[in-house]
């Protein structure tokens, strides 16, 4: 097997499909033309409403072996994936490839379908039980994980062809105009689903809030939607919205946020700058502190790319930032703002960070603050697997934000409950060290040696600066050197870089 640019041995074929090894960001040029969907013709009539999932599945002609897609705007409150897959299973359709933007613990009912013949594989982020089951070898074929933008690229390039897109729609009209800002299951933007609506052969909207034609505002337009299926509930608002997200109260995490803020202040803070916001405890704290600092210094940002939360919305409405780009809303404040404020803009995921496009939002980012499960002495980052080898998380937008931002900061504790986070070698490479600039821990920071400019800017700072090797040694000194977890040679998942090359693989874990 070839060795890729981050030193990992990777196969050249996954599930019978050829993949190139990772060669470095922007080192593998694209080929060919964009792929298209089946051209359809709507019958006469003023309604696309079909009252049962089974009927719609028959109508679109779903067969054994086909690919179905879902979006994850409803997150851990989503009912649609389970509802559709259960119907497919009952109808006796087999060997389905599921192509979600992400799956969550709420999708645990899919676990038995991995072994009963319904699902042959999942290509998408798996948070929790499905990832764990896959780690132990439950999936027949190999999982393929892509970042948000990598998934868009895969669809556009024809690497993945979607037969049927099932689109959870918090609001829909009978002729297929959809939005996510109204209805009992409101989730904000429908950004993840847009590429599927455009490129799938068949599209089915599933809604619990059918409104008279025309629904408005419109996120996904009627000419891309074949059928609309009303159901009782598409989700549980409690799981869709994370509630009011709380800034971390952990003093060590707050210390990490303060160090990150100091780096931003010295390296990137200036009028008109831009940054990527997230919803993790440390990210929220950084966003909050950054807002405070901007207020104090009289600095205004040009845009925030989110991961939108109340904290981001407050900054928009206070005039600390001109524009919010919204690919995902985390609380009701964000949903409300998206609906009402014209400077709060819903962005299709195709605009986010696809390297095979004419340029995404991430290329305009000055600062990206990201989390990680592990970071190693080459600055490689793992967000997919735990240190014991279990596949438990998706990639999200980690790769493109890291690759695009002028300053990429990874915030992590030095260790979590004895498990070292800064390691000699990450269990799985999600994001290569070449696009990571600063690692911030509660003990101090490490700057990627190739970023002389940042090293220079940080001179004279009170923040302790270490070689990353020293941070790693410190972690091992406190925790002890971990033993190598017992894994096998069987590949259960491939991790793709955003350009579709294989950056790493995940191996089966012994029970």
């Amino acid at each position: 097997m070839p060795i890729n640019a981050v030193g990992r041995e990777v196969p050249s074929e996954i599930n019978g499909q050829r993949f190139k090894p990772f060669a470095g960001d922007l080192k593998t040029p694209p080929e060919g033309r964009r792929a298209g969907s089946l051209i359809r013709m709507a019958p006469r009539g003023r309604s696309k409403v079909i009252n049962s999932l089974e009927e719609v599945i028959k109508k679109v002609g779903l067969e054994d072996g086909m690919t179905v897609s879902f979006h994850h705007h409803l997150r851990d409150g989503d009912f649609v994936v389970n509802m559709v897959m259960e119907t497919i299973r009952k109808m006796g359709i087999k060997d389905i490839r599921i192509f979600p933007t992400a799956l969550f613990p709420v999708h645990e009912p899919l676990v038995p379908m991995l072994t009963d013949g319904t699902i042959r594989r999942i290509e998408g982020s798996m948070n929790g039980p499905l990832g764990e089951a896959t780690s132990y070898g439950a999936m027949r074929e190999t999982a393929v994980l892509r970042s948000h933008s990598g998934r868009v690229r895969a669809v556009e390039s024809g690497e993945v062809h979607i037969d049927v897109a099932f689109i959870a729609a918090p609001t829909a009209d009978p002729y297929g105009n959809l939005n996510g800002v109204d209805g009992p299951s409101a989730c904000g933007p429908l950004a993840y689903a847009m590429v599927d609506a455009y490129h799938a052969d068949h599209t089915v909207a599933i809604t619990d809030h059918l409104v008279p034609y025309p629904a408005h505002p419109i996120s996904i337009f009627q000419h891309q939607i074949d059928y609309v299926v009303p159901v009782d509930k598409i989700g549980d608002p409690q799981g869709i919205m994370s509630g009011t997200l709380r800034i971390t109260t952990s003093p060590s995490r707050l210390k990490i946020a303060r160090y990150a803020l100091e780096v931003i202040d010295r390296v990137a803070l200036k009028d008109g700058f831009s940054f990527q916001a997230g919803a993790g405890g440390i990210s929220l704290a950084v966003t909050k502190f950054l807002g405070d600092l901007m207020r104090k210094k009289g600095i205004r940002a040009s845009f925030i790319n989110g991961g939108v939360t109340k904290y981001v919305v407050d900054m928009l409405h206070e005039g600390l930032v001109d524009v919010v780009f919204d690919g995902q809303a985390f609380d009701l404040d964000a949903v409300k703002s998206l609906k009402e404020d014209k400077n709060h803009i819903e962005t299709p995921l195709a605009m986010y960070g696809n390297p095979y496009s004419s340029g995404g939002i991430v290329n305009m980012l000055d600062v990206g603050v990201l989390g990680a499960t592990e970071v190693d002495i080459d600055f490689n980052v793992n967000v997919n697997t735990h240190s014991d080898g279990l596949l438990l998380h998706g990639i999200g937008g980690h790769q493109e934000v890291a690759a695009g931002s002028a300053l990429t900061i990874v915030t992590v504790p030095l260790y979590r409950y004895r498990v070292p986070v800064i390691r000699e070698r990450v269990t799985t490479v999600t994001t290569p060290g070449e696009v990571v600039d600063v690692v911030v821990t509660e003990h101090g920071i490490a700057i990627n040696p190739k970023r002389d400019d940042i090293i220079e800017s940080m001179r004279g700072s009170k923040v302790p600066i270490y070689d990353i090797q020293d941070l790693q040694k410190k972690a091992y000194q406190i925790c002890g050197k971990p033993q190598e977890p017992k894994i096998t040679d069987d590949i259960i998942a491939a991790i793709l870089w955003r350009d579709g090359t294989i950056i790493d693989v995940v191996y089966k874990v012994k029970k």
Partner: protein
Amino acid sequence: MKLRRTRLYIPGNNPHLVENAGLYGADAVILDLEDSVPITQKFDARILVKYSLQNVNFGVSEKWVRINGIGTPYWKKDLEEILPYCDVINLPKVESLDDVDTADQEMSLIEDKNGIEPRKLVPIIETVKGLKNAREIATHPRVVALAWGGEDLTADLGIPRKKALILDYVRAEIVLAAKAEKKQALDTVFSDVRDMDALYQYAQRARYMGFDGIGVIHPNQIEVVHRAFRPTEEEIEEARKIIEAAKEAEREGKAVISLNGRMIDPPVVERARKILALAEVD
């Protein structure tokens, strides 16, 4: 003199809090075996604190342990286990010089047995009787500072803590008792961990009252308190001028230092030195 602007209280039986206690740059960390540890955990906490003192990097922080009071069955055991590994013993509910002597004798025995340098002692005055004897207590050579606690003291007086009018008198008494012996005076904690503005006011007030530091119960309080204990720009400017005048007088061989026609006494010069030293500290 060692800076003791902040002393961070950490419950002694909580490993997760103990292992991170050195991260925050407090002047001192107090591993607590007393009030934050329930009776059923006294044994475990003592052993945990012993191991933490030997294994955790407490960074710039002086290592204190608040042991149980000499009226309890625990204090001797506490000392026996932890004394060799800490810098300062924080002794609660001290009421008299006798109490200090009792602790001192026990400490000396352990120090001799282990062949270690004498450890320092910071008594906590938290009863009416203790307050009455504070001046005597401060005279003990092992005592480097006096601290005080309001809860027991107001209870002792039968008045509600929040309404108590006597506390500023208590503070003044603690400062005078300590300072007369050239010891440090340490104010008690500010317990609203969310209100940073009020904390700043509180700490600055403590400083102007004559205290050298206050207790903190959350790491987030440390930076605020250090800021409050930093001399103001005006104070620094004034101190600079005084030191400059003193240097000039020395250069010119004058016996009297004067600034803008005003005579400057030696204690004023000394204060100016202290202010500049404190301003240097981060």
